[in-house]
């Protein structure tokens, strides 16, 4: 079944120059392997098309049940150069949580997603 990421994760985002970072954290430890499988750099690049104009890097933090994404060329030049309302990428966190991912019925039962 398809579920929105917001059912499985919380997130925080910030900036470094023209790069936004999004930390995606599993709400429950059992959800982390699903994030690793479903929320790939390619899927995130596709999700942020029209927003992220550069590469996307993904890093795994199994110790925190979290993934960290770097979205390059996403902030209109970044810092004081940017004209964007969200020049610091603070709302990229919930933008990522809009993503729909695929979970098995079994996983959905375990994570009580129904």
């Amino acid at each position, binding site marked *: 079944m398809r579920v929105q990421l917001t059912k499985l994760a919380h997130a925080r985002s910030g900036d470094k120059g023209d790069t936004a970072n999004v930390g995606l954290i599993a709400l429950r430890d059992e959800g982390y392997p699903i994030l690793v499988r479903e929320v790939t750099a390619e899927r995130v690049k596709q999700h942020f098309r029209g927003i992220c104009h550069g590469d996307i890097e993904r890093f795994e933090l199994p*110790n925190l049940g979290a993934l960290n994404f770097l979205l390059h060329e996403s902030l209109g030049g970044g810092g004081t150069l940017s*004209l964007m309302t969200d020049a610091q990428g603070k709302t990229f966190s919930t933008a990522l949580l809009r993503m729909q991912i695929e979970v098995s019925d079994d996983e959905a039962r375990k994570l009580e997603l129904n």
Partner: protein
Amino acid sequence: MKETIRIAAGQGFWGDLPDAPVRQVEGGPIDYLMLDYLAEVTMSIMQKQKARDPNSGYARDFVPLMKRILPACVERGIKVTANAGGVNVRGCADAVVAVARELGLGGRVRIGIVAGDDIMSRLDEMLSRGIELRNMDTGEPLSSVRDSIQSANVYLGAAPLVEALNQGAQIVITGRATDTGLTLAPLIHEFGWAADDWNRLAAGTIAGHIIECGAQCSGGNCQYEWRSIPNLADVGFPIAEASPDGTFVITKHEGTGGRVNIPSVKEQLLYEMGDPHEYITPDCVADFTTIHLQDDGRDRVRVFGIQGRRATEFLKVSISYSAGYKAVGTLVYAWPDAYEKAQAADKILRARLDRLGLRFDHVLTEFVGANATHGPLAGEPRADAPEVQLRVGVRGQDRSAIERFTKEIAPLILTGPPAVTGFAGGRPKVEEIVAYWPALIPKSEINPKVEVLDA
């Protein structure tokens, strides 16, 4: 040696809750108060202030704050680490000395000064020796913006702060020191950690990272169960309660609002994170994939297992330079067809700018209420939206073009689509853009200077 040291964060940035440091001092036991005042472009603002008035150029709020808390700090032996000195550390320290004497605390407070971060006057000499100070993001050499540079400061690590504390300073004032160093230095000083004890240095650095954004780790801006976070009106700023073995607990004062739990700490750990395997500071390279968190009771999270590696041979330089001008204009369109009207107004505005032959490096239109934060991910705006704000920004090198743009916003009220308002503030302001240029410099180029004054 004390069993634990409690380091309290009092400011997450220059302009954070003014009373937070006072509450950290008065709200319960602490050993250190850590205050981070400097964002990336703050140095350039301070450099400008100092050019106008040689006695300014530091975080002025720090002085009245010290006036308020210094008696309690002296009485209870609370020490303060603050990068409030900006580009005039000496001026800031002199002002604090004057305050101490005014309070009758002369002879009872020693004030440490850490300088040597300002390399503005050495830039040409460095460039001539082949130190290119290339932009870490774009790879461009600094010479391409040499004439526009407004400030250049090296991020100093914990070592000079430790030296000041070792010389008996109770208040340590720095210029551009790292946020994390303000927390790490007290731990090195108190626990005698060795300069190559990479795991403990990494632990102290990560403690600093967690508390350096103030309440952002204790319930502020926290997505996890945000509705149930109690009493943010009285949010408790974080405290790192550290042990000599490098483990620490993140907590806050009893009776304050907010919440410290594993999700709130995880969110802050990931804030502004790059490659988690290498969080590079002047003091060490910390590995965020080794952090372990454990629930340690109400509003307490224990952090342990942290590993680090040898520091690099470089320091980061924060350079600011003038990069043109910008302005942002806004108008609000009301139901019905608010989004459609805002779009129509944007087309009219752009046609007028074109006809005027104005040139900009960038023009950005956003529709607040429709797509300003999540762009196309937000989907097509509702046709019956109660209101939409049109927000148009322009950026360029020619100040007069930006000025002209600011005169084209208000006329849209009488010459564009109907049901429009929201122009009480007058014409948009033209802002000079001071941009940030991060670079690396060999550590051997920099010699921090430490001085301790008696109040």
